[in-house]
């Protein structure tokens, strides 16, 4: 189709008007919908995610709950008054409970009285995923032991399978027991198991886990074990570390620096 001079000027004018109005109109309309969120461009990618916890640093402030509060807020973790209904993602255990095989009456005082952060160990050989009858939990290729709450039927085999007590069951509707609802993350329903997800939703946005970011003492170090230059590999090279219940063969990937 030939474009004559007159038609060319018409089109140019129309285009200029269109561009100008598209700049002006959005500001004019107050009720304009903000539109869809942009997809995250730079996720954190790793081959074997793991965490190291500096027990000494964490111990300094016994009452500090920054990481726990950050996790609970990020993931809509409910708080029940009755301990039987408790739902936990990350919490503190006395040293002799968390690291029994490192505990003795002669253990250094600073450790014996320490409270140790515990959560899902994201095992390399996770027993919980093997007993799940619906494949609602599985180990991802980057090491995160993931849950699909859509598929969980609440049989609690995984709760029994986990030797660390890292999985909680929702005996009651958790929604009324969430202190501050975070719309960015779903809640769970009654009859579903939940646990730490290594902040996979944050990794997808290129952010470190919420607990790691929240810790003022920098006691939590998150990183890729397959990357020899990562901070976690550096700290594991330099300092002695222990893991929970290694004799069970679950290959936990949370390292405690003593």
């Amino acid at each position, binding site marked *: 189709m030939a474009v004559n001079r007159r038609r060319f000027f018409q089109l140019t004018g129309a285009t200029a008007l269109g561009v100008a109005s598209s700049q002006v109109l959005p500001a004019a*309309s107050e*009720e304009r919908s*903000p539109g*869809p*969120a942009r997809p*995250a461009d730079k996720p954190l990618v790793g081959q074997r995610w793991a965490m190291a916890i500096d027990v000494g640093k964490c111990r300094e402030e016994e009452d500090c709950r920054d990481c726990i509060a950050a996790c609970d807020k990020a993931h809509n973790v409910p708080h029940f008054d009755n301990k039987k209904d408790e739902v936990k993602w990350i919490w503190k255990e006395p040293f002799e409970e968390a690291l029994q095989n490192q505990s003795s009456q002669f253990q250094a005082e600073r450790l014996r009285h320490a409270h140790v952060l515990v959560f899902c160990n994201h095992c390399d050989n996770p027993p919980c995923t093997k007993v799940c009858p619906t494949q609602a939990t599985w180990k991802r290729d980057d090491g995160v032991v993931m849950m699909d709450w*859509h598929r969980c039927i609440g049989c609690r085999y995984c709760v029994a399978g986990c030797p660390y007590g890292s999985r909680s069951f929702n005996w009651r509707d958790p929604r009324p027991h969430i202190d501050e609802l975070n719309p960015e993350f779903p809640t*769970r329903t009654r009859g579903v198991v939940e646990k730490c997800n290594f902040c996979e939703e944050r990794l997808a946005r290129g952010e470190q886990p919420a607990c790691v970011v929240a810790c003022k003492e920098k006691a939590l170090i998150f990183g890729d074990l397959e990357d020899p230059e990562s901070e976690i590999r550096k700290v594991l090279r330099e300092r002695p570390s222990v893991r929970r219940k290694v004799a069970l063969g679950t290959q936990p990937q949370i390292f405690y620096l003593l």
Partner: protein
Amino acid sequence: MHDAGKIIPGLAFFLVLATAPIWYNVASGHGAVVPEIEKPEGQTQCVADAAFMRREHMQLLLEWRDEVVRDRARVYVTADGRRYDKSLTRTCLGCHQSKANSCDRCHNYLDVQPYCWECHVDPRGGL
């Protein structure tokens, strides 16, 4: 037939009475009312055309769900190359501001109860 004079008008009366709600709706124009979802201000395009979304949005959401949770494939690329975050709350409700006037209006009309919102949270308040 004995008493035809009573039975036939009686039957006719019964039929009119039984179908009265239908005639009422036809007469008042309510019968043909179909819920219309609120269109987002200032947004012209959805992730797919309206006919597809009307018919298949539930299937699309199920696919998004599985791909995000199980395969970590979080970016949806439309046929014409636009990129979206596969997210009910951030993408769908990013444009459709009101859950009540978008999701619920049709679902209530059709009396379907999808369980999305038993866990997912309406970003603009309300459980």
